[in-house]
């Protein structure tokens, strides 16, 4: 899976936001705040990856157990999927 194309990610006031642009902005209104592991998960989803691979990436960065990381990834990914923002 992979995030749909068309997001611009920028820091505003020290927070990280993903904002839909171009054609995507007509389908998806609003913006996504990326905090904590959300940033790494978002980064990983720029390429075609599995949930397992994203969990591996988080474990490289954060000192957490696999179960916790898997729960974070699953929660974030299902929100993106519900919003129709994942391909594959």
């Amino acid at each position: 899976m992979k995030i749909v194309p068309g997001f611009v990610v920028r820091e505003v006031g020290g927070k990280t936001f993903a904002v839909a642009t171009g054609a995507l902005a007509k389908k998806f209104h609003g913006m996504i705040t990326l905090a904590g592991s959300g940033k790494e998960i978002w980064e990983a989803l720029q390429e075609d990856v599995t949930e397992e691979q994203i969990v591996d990436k988080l474990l490289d960065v954060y000192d957490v157990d696999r179960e916790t990381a898997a729960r974070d990834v699953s929660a974030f990914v299902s929100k993106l999927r519900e919003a129709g923002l994942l391909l594959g």
Partner: protein
Amino acid sequence: MLIVGIAGLVIGIEHRYPYLAKHCTAYQTDGTPDFTVTVTDKMIEDELARAETIPEGVTPGYLESLAVARAIAHRLPGYDAFLFHAAVIEYKGEAIAFTAPSGTGKSTHIKNWKRAFGADVDIVNGDKPILRFGSDGTLTAYGTPWAGKEGWSRNVGRPLKAVVFLERGKEDRVVPLSPADAALPVMNQILLESDPETVAETLALADRMLGTVGLFRLACTPDVGSALVAKQAVFGK
């Protein structure tokens, strides 16, 4: 072609209906435009489709005027500027922008500033001012012809001192906000529906704005005291 001077820019407008020229009377100028916007039928239809509430007796000319505001807004980030949905007043020459969901009492609060401080207060714009960074880094709030239902509009630019996010309260209370706290409320007042490059430029300007002006949340009553509380927070004693 209609030529207007707004926010220190000369803007050409290719339009169809007479409403717009009348609407922009106080801003008409001459000279070579920095850029030109051209209205199409599709843009006017899109405005109608977008409107949440369509005012009674709405005319194509009125919709065209909204389409022009949107078209201009898309070009502004290239000039270190953006359209900010807010009501702006000036107090002794410095601007304060108030934002609030409609029905919060923004107009009432501004009338209270006028009552409390009289001639020291004047309106800059009631709905869609343009904020623009100068080469010296100053952020200036400029009046535009798009001024909301009160029609509060002056063709002036004043340095922006603060942004105040209004909400209703049982008593008047001000809380200073950090740039992180104010980031989302600020972005909610900026048109972000554009191409990736323009959105990236706009977000960079929003980030600069958060580091440049005072940021406050004001819970306020409809009483004149709300203006005294807000003024003290923004300007000190």
